[in-house]
């Protein structure tokens, strides 16, 4: 009895363990596939936005063989084909009644010919080809005479509404860290710029002093030049302060990002 129970419990554990490992494998697979899927989604989104832009740029103008239809393509072609079908159905009903009313084969043939004629007229005014293909007139693509139907890219619905994953978080943290590194390099460039600016200010001050000594300048000139030099100095100080603030903020943000990474490892 005991042995049987033990066997049963062991089997249960075995199944439970296998199910657990399978679930974990699936989870890791999903994690691996998430960035790929994201890339694909981005591509499809780009294609869709390109298509929408094209349609917007062309003002939704589409042509058939004889006339130009303006408005939304789906709506227009839908309406045209619907009207067509309705008219043809009415005609068929009308002529079938007429055919039933007469038994003379000659008359029936005449009625049929008349019906076919009218049908063809309807087809010519709203040809089915125009209803199926959506073409544009204003683009350069169609100047050669050919008409290309625009294909709307398929969009997989609700794919982006996935659950947040650790991989996504890692990716974002990594990109943020890279950004900080890049910004730091930019700050180094700005610091070099500050050094050059200080040298220029010194140079300008020296020139002004020399001109003052020579007595070439009026009082107004001196005041305006001094004002310009002072303004430049103020701007240098402002940029220095902004760089310092940026550096401290970058340090802060970087340590925060590192904390996020550490939390995840724990």
């Amino acid at each position, binding site marked *: 009895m005991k042995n049987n129970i033990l066997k049963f419990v062991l089997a249960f554990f075995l199944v439970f363990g296998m199910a657990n490992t399978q679930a974990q494998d699936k989870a890791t697979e999903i994690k691996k596939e998430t960035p790929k899927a994201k890339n694909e989604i981005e591509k499809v989104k780009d294609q869709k936005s390109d298509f929408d832009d094209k349609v917007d740029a062309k003002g939704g103008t589409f042509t058939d063989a004889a006339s130009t239809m303006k408005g939304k393509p789906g709506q227009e072609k839908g309406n045209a084909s619907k009207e067509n079908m309705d008219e043809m159905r009415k005609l068929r009903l009308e002529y079938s009644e007429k055919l039933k009313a007469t038994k003379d084969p000659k008359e029936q043939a005449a009625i049929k010919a008349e019906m076919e004629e009218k049908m063809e007229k309807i087809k010519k005014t709203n040809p089915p080809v125009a209803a199926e293909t959506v073409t544009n007139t204003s683009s350069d693509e169609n100047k050669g005479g050919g008409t290309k139907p625009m294909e709307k890219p398929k969009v997989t619905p609700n794919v982006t509404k996935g659950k*947040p994953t650790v991989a996504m978080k890692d990716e974002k943290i990594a990109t943020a860290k890279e950004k900080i590194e890049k910004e730091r390099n930019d700050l180094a460039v700005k610091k070099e710029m500050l050094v050059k600016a200080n040298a*220029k200010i010194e140079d300008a001050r020296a020139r002004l002093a020399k001109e003052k000594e020579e007595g070439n300048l009026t009082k107004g000139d001196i005041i305006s030049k001094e004002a*310009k030099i002072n303004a*430049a100095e103020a701007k240098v100080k402002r940029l220095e302060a902004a760089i310092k603030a940026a550096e401290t903020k970058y340090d802060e943000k970087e340590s925060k990002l590192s904390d996020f990474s550490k939390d995840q490892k724990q």
Partner: protein
Amino acid sequence: MKIISKLLFAFLLVTVLSCRDTAKEEAELNATLEEVEAIDQELESISNEVETNAQELEETLEELDSL
């Protein structure tokens, strides 16, 4: 009987350990992602500020050159 109770206890332990609080983890992940995004935006604004200051300085330096 003792063995069975031990096994059952072990099973209970494994079950409790394997049943993670996924909702909580998800919420934490979301919060972290939002924070990282906020950091990203802040970085953008900081760099913009530095850039505008640098541009202003460049303009005034050009004026200094013509002095």
